[in-house]
């Protein structure tokens, strides 16, 4: 048995060329075969790669999809993010617990099924949703649960279950992303131009990154192209982890060719021979169809050597799977992860365009950005720049979820007002709109006249509608909890600050807070924002800060009149001490 395992590890490590940079793939392959990664597996892997076992353990322990304990043959990940809970995920969760006779985090006694909660899996428009051994299940109802559990127990093919279905849910296609394009059209245009004029065309379109930060794409490519290195890399960021974002999913379902087209054009522009698509672990179900598209493109000469007959232009794409960590969407953490390490953000400078993947110049671009780039090559920068608003050209994909009649993906020109958007999606009575996910901002009705654009209210795509009946502070609490879970732990303001924010917010919500707690929330929130190393910490206080600003009455209504209130209940705290030492508060006449 032990020998079997050693040879399995050795074979797997061989398969990935004994390359330490491929540790993520090695660990994923072993995890898929063995169901978990024991200390023994970790030790063998380290030995086979010739690295220290702590390097392997360090990496494995970071990702939520890797278990170091034995798990059931079937693993259920039920999403319990904010939108899911609006749609009844708690009841579905209870139904699973009842049906399986276990709690979340546990495995059935016969080692058959393990039950976990997970953050947003990119199916918020079809909530409640779950991944069962990686297969997406959508629109779940408590009544579905017994049938699903029975099918698992009887070893049926889960793909045949009626709930195992993902609708791409494109409600409104636009001209940039969800429009037809002939395979290779953009590449053929590009190779008839110099890389510099390709970049110039993107510049004419004034394209800005769709992944969140809005950096001008032409400038990024130009920096990368000019940076010196042994090789250049192009990375497509398909980690889409911001709760309520699922627009890249729709692209990867509906028009994967356009993304690969964009990656190839970018590769040509920056002088890369290798492109990597970093696909979040939650989207593993998309992998087979994406691999098919890649094979097809290789067959058509759109990838590989001398692409489209262009002498010397070689470009290949490989898909790197992630393993469940929101922070890996941050570009430097993503690169660490793609190199087979824990996904901890790097210090900058140097920026990825200077030292990125394997220390070489790398351009990291969002899925949607690359689609826009391909379209610009096909239709011209001027055409692209004619759409949108002053500083935000083109269209934007918005993934709308929550309390609305028509959740789904909308491709709309930049500059649309929140008011118009909520009318379109059937949510005119919204209490609040969370734009940009938890890391974005919460807009109150007085702000609904503002526009979705880089110059006003930017978003990576997430739009979560919070209806009139919702407890908004409960949503804020869950958003804050998300950051507590996902902080990589490197900086104190983010690691500890998010927890203190959560505790203080809970104190206020339970009616035990005072005015000084509100002041502390604001003060600490600003510290976390300004003192954290990466975008996660820099935005983690946004749910609290933007609602204190937009909805002060909600907070005011819950605080006490006293200037100060203690953080905990003395009596309860002392009772624990009495119990531990066999004493009794009342008998000893102690008053608190």
């Amino acid at each position, binding site marked *: 048995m032990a020998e079997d395992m050693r040879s399995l590890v050795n074979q797997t490590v061989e398969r990935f060329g004994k390359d330490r940079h491929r540790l993520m793939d090695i660990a994923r392959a072993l995890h898929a075969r063995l169901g978990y990664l024991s200390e023994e597996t970790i030790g063998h892997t380290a030995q086979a790669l010739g690295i220290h076992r702590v390097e392997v353990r360090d990496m494995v322990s970071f990702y939520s999809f890797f278990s170091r304990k034995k798990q059931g043959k079937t693993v259920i990940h039920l999403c319990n993010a904010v939108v899911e809970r609006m749609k009844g995920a708690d009841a579905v969760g209870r139904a699973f617990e009842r049906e399986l006779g276990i709690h979340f985090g546990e495995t059935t006694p016969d080692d058959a099924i393990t039950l976990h909660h997970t953050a947003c899996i990119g199916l918020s428009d079809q909530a409640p949703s779950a991944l069962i051994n990686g297969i997406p299940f959508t629109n779940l109802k408590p009544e579905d649960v017994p049938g699903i559990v029975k099918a698992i127990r009887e070893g049926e093919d889960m793909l045949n279950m009626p709930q195992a279905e993902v609708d791409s849910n494109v409600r409104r296609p636009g001209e940039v992303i969800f429009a037809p394009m002939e395979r290779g059209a953009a590449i053929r245009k590009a190779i008839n131009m110099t890389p510099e004029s390709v970049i110039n065309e993107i510049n004419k379109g004034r394209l800005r990154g769709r992944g969140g930060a809005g950096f001008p794409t032409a400038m990024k490519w130009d920096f990368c192209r000019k940076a010196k290195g042994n090789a250049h890399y192009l990375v497509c960021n398909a980690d889409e982890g911001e709760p309520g974002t699922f627009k890249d999913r729709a692209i990867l379902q509906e028009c994967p060719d356009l993304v690969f087209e964009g990656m190839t054009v970018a590769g040509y522009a920056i002088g890369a021979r290798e492109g990597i698509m970093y696909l979040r672990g939650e989207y593993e179900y998309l992998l087979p169809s994406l691999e098919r598209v890649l094979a097809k493109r290789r067959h058509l000469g759109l990838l590989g050597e001398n692409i489209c007959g262009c002498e010397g232009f070689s470009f290949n794409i490989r898909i790197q799977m992630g393993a469940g960590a929101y922070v890996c969407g941050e570009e430097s953490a993503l690169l660490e992860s793609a190199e087979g390490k824990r996904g901890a953000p790097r210090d900058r400078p140097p920026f990825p365009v200077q030292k990125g993947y394997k220390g070489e110049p790398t351009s990291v671009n969002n899925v949607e950005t690359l689609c826009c780039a391909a379209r610009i090559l096909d239709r011209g920068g001027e055409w692209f720049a004619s759409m949108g608003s002053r500083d935000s050209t083109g269209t934007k994909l918005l993934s709308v979820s929550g309390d609305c009649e028509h959740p789904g993906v909308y491709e709309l020109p930049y500059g649309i007002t929140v008011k118009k958007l909520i009318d379109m999606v059937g949510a005119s009575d919204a209490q609040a709109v969370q734009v940009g996910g938890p890391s974005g901002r919460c807009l109150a009705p007085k702000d609904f006249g503002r526009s979705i654009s880089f110059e006003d209210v930017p978003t990576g795509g997430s739009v979560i509608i919070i209806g009139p009946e919702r407890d908004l502070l409960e949503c804020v609490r869950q958003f804050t909890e998300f950051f507590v879970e996902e902080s990589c732990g490197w900086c104190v303001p983010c690691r500890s600050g998010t927890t203190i924010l959560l505790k203080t917010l809970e104190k206020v919500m339970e009616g035990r807070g005072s005015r*000084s707690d509100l002041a502390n929330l604001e003060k600490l929130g600003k510290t976390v924002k300004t003192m954290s190393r990466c975008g996660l910490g820099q935005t983690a206080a946004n749910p609290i800060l933007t609602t204190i600003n937009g909805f002060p009455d909600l907070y005011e209504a819950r605080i006490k009149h006293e*200037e*100060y209130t*203690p*953080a*905990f209940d*003395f009596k*309860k*705290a*002392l009772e*624990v*001490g*009495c*119990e*531990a*030492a*066999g*004493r009794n*508060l009342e008998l*000893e006449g*102690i008053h*608190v």
Partner: protein
Amino acid sequence: MTKPLVATGHFTGCFGCHMSLLDIDERILDLVQLVEFDKSPINDIKTFNRPVDIGIIEGGVSNSENVEFLREFRKYCKILVAIGSCALTGGVPAMRNTVPLKECLQEAYLDGPTIVNGVIPNDPELPILLDRVYPCHEVVKIDYFLPGCPPSGDTLFNAIVALLKGDALALPYELVKYD
């Protein structure tokens, strides 16, 4: 003019912060010129019997007695300054927070390898432990915080003098850099 009154208190800490206070060396003579010490372990005055201007406290809050005395400090002191990691965050004693109290006591008094016929102390004279070790500001309002383990004598001296004179506290970088 009467001199401002200063009290100092020690809760769940190691007394290192008080030692640091003594580390101001001969400047303690300056300090005595400026202030009068009331309740403090330094002079062994045990109870408050008049309002005090500044209270300086070391250590976190781990038991019923700490809670009682800290509340007393808040009641008598116009300004309360928490000093040192233990007072600010719970510090080293708060390492027990990662283990449930009962397990801690069992390990310390019943199951430890050197224990013969152990009992968990339960004399009514002893304070009752809280479930966790808390920082002072979670029990009473604290006006100022001075981090450090311990804050250096210079930090403490500068801070007290600034407070007495009503000046803004300006500490050089070396005094607030901890790693």
